């Protein structure tokens, strides 16, 4: 492979891989606290993208009952993405209160939580279809400011500019944003009192409450954070490509599952590594086979699980007698 193509694929893979990572971390933190997989996380991804789209003043060109509707104002993109992701976070909290908490307080099997979150995902998809419609919504090309509009790509061959390695500016921006979020998250979880308490709740909720940690509050915050990460990832992917309709988050939802299983269920560095591995693997799919790109994550998952059933960084499950 030509070195310039290699570098280009590598950088693009890195960019989408970090987005997968922050999305997958949303699954991971919920899993590590409650031991459940929140199947509505893909729908949260979709919601985040829609929220941001409307918050910047985008109009609904879909055919749902809100056809041609839009907000009477438009927020600057940076603000919109924060507010939109936060709204997605509160949707996550709502889902926890409606779909998970009632089951948990009755001591139901975790498998039921999985089913109820799948139900929530279907409701959200159908609601979006009903209200907005199934059409593609595209973010304006200048959401990141005129700079991006005028420079749709940047040449990354700093050594020999005559052999260009063009990377779309939006890829660079989503990489930068995701990276900042990953660093903040690592700091939050490893260094702050919040993170230590969160890990205590994940390890043993009863012990955590004996130390004075309000477990209920941390579950609330976990879903808020998880939803925020999901909504942010959805927005970033939406600006990079477009919002493909109510089912936008479904493939990403499944891919995110592949990422966390690949990295090791419940393992935070594992989710980041898994995201990067899958992002990079996809970026190196040759053009002729691009139709199979979506299958790469699962093929990779299959192969790696054959060798390491606990995932790349996962702890081997101790057999309980």
């Amino acid at each position, binding site marked *: 492979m030509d070195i310039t193509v290699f570098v280009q694929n590598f950088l693009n893979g890195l960019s989408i891989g970090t987005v997968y990572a922050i999305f997958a971390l949303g699954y991971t933190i919920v899993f590590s606290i409650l031991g459940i997989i929140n199947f509505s996380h893909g729908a949260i991804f979709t919601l985040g993208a829609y929220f941001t789209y409307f918050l910047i003043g985008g109009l609904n060109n879909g055919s749902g009952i809100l056809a041609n509707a839009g907000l009477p104002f438009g927020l600057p993109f940076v603000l919109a993405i924060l507010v939109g992701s936060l709204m997605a976070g509160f949707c996550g909290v709502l889902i926890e209160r409606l779909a998970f908490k009632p089951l948990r307080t009755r001591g139901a099997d975790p498998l039921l939580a999985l089913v109820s979150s799948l139900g929530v995902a279907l409701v959200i998809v159908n609601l979006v279809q009903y209200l907005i419609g199934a059409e593609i919504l595209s973010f304006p090309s200048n959401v990141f400011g005129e700079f991006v509009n005028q420079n749709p790509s940047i040449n990354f061959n700093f050594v020999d500019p005559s052999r260009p390695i063009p990377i779309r500016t939006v890829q660079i921006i989503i990489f930068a944003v995701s990276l900042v979020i990953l660093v903040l998250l690592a700091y939050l979880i490893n260094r702050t009192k919040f993170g230590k308490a969160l890990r205590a709740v994940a*390890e043993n909720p009863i012990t955590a409450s004996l*130390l004075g940690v309000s477990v209920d509050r941390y579950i609330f915050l976990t879903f808020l954070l998880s939803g925020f990460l999901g909504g942010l990832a959805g927005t970033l992917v939406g600006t990079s490509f477009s919002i493909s309709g109510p089912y936008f988050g479904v493939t990403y939802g499944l891919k995110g599952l592949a990422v966390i299983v690949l990295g090791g269920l419940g393992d935070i560095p594992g989710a980041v590594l898994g995201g990067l591995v899958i992002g990079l693997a996809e970026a190196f799919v040759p053009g002729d086979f691009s139709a199979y790109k979506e299958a790469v994550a699962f093929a990779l998952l299959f192969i790696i699980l054959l060798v390491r059933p606990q995932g790349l960084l996962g702890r081997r499950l101790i057999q309980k007698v």
Partner: protein
Amino acid sequence: MPMLEIAGLSVNYGGIQALVDFNLHINEGEVVTLIGSNGAGKTTTLRAISRVIRTKSGTIQFNGKDITRSEASSVVSAGIAQSPEGRQVLARQSVYDNLEMGAYIRNDRKGILEDIELQFNRFPRLRERKAQMAGTLSGGEQQMLAIARALMSRPKLLLLDEPSLGLAPLIVREIFGIIAQLHAQGVTILLVEQNAKIALQHADRAYVLEAGRVVLEGDAKELANNERVKQAYLG
């Protein structure tokens, strides 16, 4: 007025009655021990006080305040800390972070650092291992950490659940040395033990629990000479 007063407490697990019409009180500065064999309901009592299980009936008053329906976290804030059965250290956090987590309800950074230092002086082995993951400590070290962690919230009442469990006699003596020290410093303690001998030696008063009911109570020294106690628990 006693510091802790439990009246008519009953706890069920499904159909099993773990505590039946249970009464207990602790005065400030006392070390009170609750002894009894496996399954008597000792851990259940501590869980009920710390509000991590539901109680069926009865009341728990702490310093005159009814905490029977309080959140577990506000019981800690009210001044009750527990070193639970099986130690339950945070295995994937360092010794130091475990101590910090013990001070979760506090915000006085300086005081917390001083108290960590105090625990390290009390348990020098923890200082040597402060960066080590708590899960890799020995059983005795984990027990020391669990007690130190509970002390980090500066509790008015310390609940200890079987600190001697599974430890070598030498370590047990070390741990009870610390309990005696805490007693001398005026810390109020509710000590749950299966090792009745050492518990009665270190306590002011004692309760004997059988199948969820208090069958004997009184001065610890007197109970240690009680024929029934001698036969059943000191044999």
